[in-house]
Structures are given as C-alpha cells and as structure tokens.
C-alpha cells in the first residue's frame, strides 16, 4: 500500500478550501492532506483543520515555492511514497488525481504533470496566455528533449525520489517551470497526463495580465540560470 500525501499550498483560500478538501477525501480516502498555510490572513487554516486536514502554518508569507517545498520536506520526513500537488483554489479537480498517480505507481515516471492540452482537454486560454504557454513549451521541450505541453501546470504527482530531491532543491518564485528543468538535470523522468481542469472557485490567479510579460521574462531568466546551476541529486 502506497503512503500518499496531497500537498495543498494555500494563501487566503478560505472561499474554496472548504470545497476542495472534502472532494479530495471522497476521491482518495486513504490519502493524507497537508495544507501549507502560507501566512493567510483569512480563515483558511481554521477551515482546513476543521475538515480534518493536516495544517502547517508558515510563520510569514514565504511564497509558493517555499510553501510547496515545506510540503515536500514534510513528505520526506514522514516517509511518504507519493506526493500530489493540488491547488487550493479549486482549479485542479480531485477526481483527476488518480490519473496522475497511476503512472507513478506503475513506475512509468518519477513525476507526472497534469496537462490541459494533451488529448481531449477543453481548456481554451486567452491569446496572450496561449503565446506564453507555447513559448515555455517550446523552450522546455528543447531543454528536456521531450514533448511538454503544459509546463506551468501545478497539478503534479511525484514519487519518493523526487520528494527527497524537492525537499532539498525547490525553486522559489515561479517554481513550476523551473522544477521541470531541475528534475531533468538530476535525470528524473517526467511524463504528462491528460487532465481536465476547472476555472478557479475563489481567489485569483497569481499571474494577472499586467504581470504576464514580467512573469515570462523572469521565468526565462530563471530557466537560463537553472541550466547553468550545479544540481546534485
């Protein structure tokens, strides 16, 4: 039996977290849920505790990368076999998690990324977002020499090896894209899985249109630096 942890970083997600935790429990009764409360000012942590999730309160708002890494450290310290990243804002439907876990359990890959663009996805991004997503996909496909369609997707499952790696090395600002590069440099295998995603229930995207260009440049720079970085497994 695999020990499974669902890591849910949350910053002011009181609106949506009350729906998402029961939905995860319904779909994965045997999994533990860890909400990493990244300095929320609303009732996020209280709601999560009431619904029976494990809650880790970060002492101040540390950002998505540090919050996610906290989840991975917890998973490593507690010897979990598989960890799944799920957004607390409701855009990652819990009924899709089994599709992510399956290739990990079958040892087909070290990390499975839920892609909105593979197969019969129904997601149609705006033009600007689409261009950004295409540029990242081309760049990351070239770096990893494998076809990747949804590099910014934060809907992911990883095995024990990656849990330990992420507990030691996890990028900070916009970690999804960078994490792929680091994993690849450490010779882990990545696979994409077709999933359906939903429009978020509450809160707002960490990327507003105004920040889109800034985000792109910053991630591109970070990826270039990651290519130069020394990565130890």
């Amino acid at each position, binding site marked *: 039996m695999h020990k499974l942890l669902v890591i849910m970083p949350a910053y002011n997600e009181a609106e949506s977290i009350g729906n998402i935790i029961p939905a995860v429990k319904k779909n994965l009764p045997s999994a533990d849920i860890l909400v990493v409360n990244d300095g929320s000012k609303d009732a996020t942590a209280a709601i999560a505790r009431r619904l029976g999730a*494990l*809650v*880790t*309160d*970060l*002492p101040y708002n540390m950002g998505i990368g*540090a919050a996610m890494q*906290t989840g991975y450290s917890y998973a490593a310290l507690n010897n979990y076999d598989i960890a799944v990243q799920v957004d607390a804002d409701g855009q990652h439907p819990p009924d899709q998690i089994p599709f992510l876990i399956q290739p990990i359990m079958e040892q087909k890959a070290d990390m499975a990324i839920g892609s909105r663009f593979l197969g019969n996805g129904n997601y149609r991004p705006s033009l600007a977002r689409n261009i950004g997503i295409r540029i990242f996909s081309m760049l990351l496909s070239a770096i990893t020499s494998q076809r990747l369609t949804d590099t910014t997707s934060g809907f992911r499952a990883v095995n024990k090896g990656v849990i330990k790696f992420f507990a030691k090395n996890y990028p900070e600002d916009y970690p999804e894209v960078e994490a792929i590069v680091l994993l690849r440099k450490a010779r882990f295998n990545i696979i994409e899985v077709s999933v359906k995603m939903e429009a978020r229930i509450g809160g707002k995207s960490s990327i507003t249109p105004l920040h889109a260009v800034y985000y792109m440049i910053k991630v591109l720079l970070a990826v270039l630096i990651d290519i130069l970085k020394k990565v130890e497994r």
Partner: protein
Amino acid sequence: MHSIQIVAIIISLGILISVVDLIRRGMLKEQYAILWLASAVVLLVLSMWRGLLDNIARATGIAYPPSLLFLVAFLFLLLIVLHFSVIISSLSEKNKKLSQEIAIFKTFFEEHKKEGGKNEHRKGF
C-alpha cells in the same frame, strides 16, 4: 606634501580606526571586517607612499595619480557589496529552511498532542 595627500591619509586612517573600533566593541564580526580592513590598509599605504602611487599610475596609464586612489576604493566597494549579496543570499536560504522546519515541527507537535490526548482518554476509561 600636497593637501590632497593629507586628505587621503586622514580619510584612510579614519576608515581604519572606525573598523578596528567596531571590531573591538563587538559590533562588527571579523569575517565581515576583513575586506574593510584590507581596503583601509591598501588606501592608507597608497596615500602615504607617493612614489608607489605614481609608479602604478604611470604603469597603468592613469594621468592623475590620486585618481588611482578612487579606482582602488571603487573596486574595494564593488567587492564588499558583492560579498554582501552572497551573504544575504545565504542568510535568506537559511532563514527559509529554519522557518520551514519550525512550521513542520509545529505540525508534528500538534499531531502528537492530539494522539497523546486520545491515548490518555482511553486509559481513563
């Protein structure tokens, strides 16, 4: 002795005395003071030893020797600021690790307390 030389000597001595005093009073750790000490000593030597300054200036094609002092001071400042950036990066990494560990151990403690509570309850019955 030119007045510029006197000004340079006074400034270099001032830096040196301030740095030594800060170390003495425990307000500046030695590892962060080394670059400051080195820059103060080098500037002092170059200000007092006019012949050396003139020779280096001639060898490097600097027309006005005292401006070599500015160059040396500027390079030391660059080095000191770079050193700070490295230290800040390492401090922020340590701060992150520390905060994460505290958060995780608080969660462990909470879980442990909950389970401990349950067991005591059971014993009571």
